[in-house]
């Protein structure tokens, strides 16, 4: 066996976070900045799910394949999964609000470049 699966997931999530951070810092187009934020959030979700993995574990759903007695030994940690459901919904909400602000800013200046908005610059 090569790399453990949770390590692979963890590295993928962390790299996605870095890509998102780069997008937020470098791009001047507001839509691209929003995409950067979304990538950052998605990377965070993947990292949280990866930390819940237990070696050899399966989904924490009790059925014929995973009897209740074996749940403690063979299931992954359900708490990160439950937290990430929350986080995904909040991420969706934040993206929706950012996009509607982008529409309003475009209506005000007819451009999506962040360089056109200098009032809050110091």
């Amino acid at each position, binding site marked *: 066996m090569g790399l*453990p699966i*949770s*390590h692979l997931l*963890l*590295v993928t999530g*962390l790299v996605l*976070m*870095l890509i998102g*951070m*780069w997008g937020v*810092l*470098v791009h001047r187009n507001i839509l691209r900045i929003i995409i950067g934020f979304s990538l950052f959030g998605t990377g965070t979700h993947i990292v949280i799910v990866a*930390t819940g*993995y*237990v*070696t050899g*574990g399966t*989904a*924490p*759903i*009790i*059925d014929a394949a995973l009897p*209740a007695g074996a*749940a*403690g030994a063979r*299931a*992954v*940690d*359900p*708490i990160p*999964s*439950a937290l990430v*459901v*929350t986080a*995904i*919904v*909040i991420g*969706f*909400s934040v993206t*929706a*609000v950012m*996009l*509607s*602000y982008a*529409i*309003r800013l*475009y*209506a*005000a200046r007819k451009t999506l470049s962040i360089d056109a908005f200098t009032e809050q610059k110091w």
Partner: protein
Amino acid sequence: MKRIRAAIVVLLFGAAFAGLAVGYSERTVPSALAMRYLQEVPAELGAANVVTGILITYRGFDTLGEVAVLFMVAASVGMLLSAGAGRRAVPAGASAPPARPPSELVVNGAEVVLPVAFLFGAYVIVNGHLSAGGGFQGGAVVASGVVLLVLARPSVALHHGFLSVTESLAGVFYVALGILGLIFAGGFLDSHILPRGEFGAFISAGAIPLISALLGIKVAAELSVIIDRFRS
């Protein structure tokens, strides 16, 4: 210059993350809290899906707050996009070329996929206590069906009044179930107000399927409203 500074910041974060990734070692046993959940959700709540049990009962208040966040986002997106400048921008955009009609593929695909998508969404919502899924996931599936509908038929008008009444009623019933739990069982949103039933049956796990269905209706209606706001 700016790119160099950004590159330095990203590299520093990358170094910190690399330290995390190298130092992380996969767990071989679940934490004590996870063990407790894994044993108590099937035994006490009668729900086969442990994640749904945690979301809807143990963290039920948190889930209620989350739905409230979605509601506030729907309201604020509506406020941002419908007031003032948003309306005035429409005549300015009228000089742009008219929107292309949806492609053959989207229109015909929607006819085939839409009923299946809505049915699958309903299935995911009501089976949250038995298999992977639940209110949020199923609501998102239904809302993605609404996106397809809006793409395939740009002229279709979603009935906002109906959607907000549905959503408010689902919210009221959700809170009412929570208060019933306060009166008849251990606390707010306790699912023991209904009999636990047979483990693994469709009608089982106390009030969890009911709360899950209300959650799914509420989430689907809220997401549809948010999506529709962006269209106008």
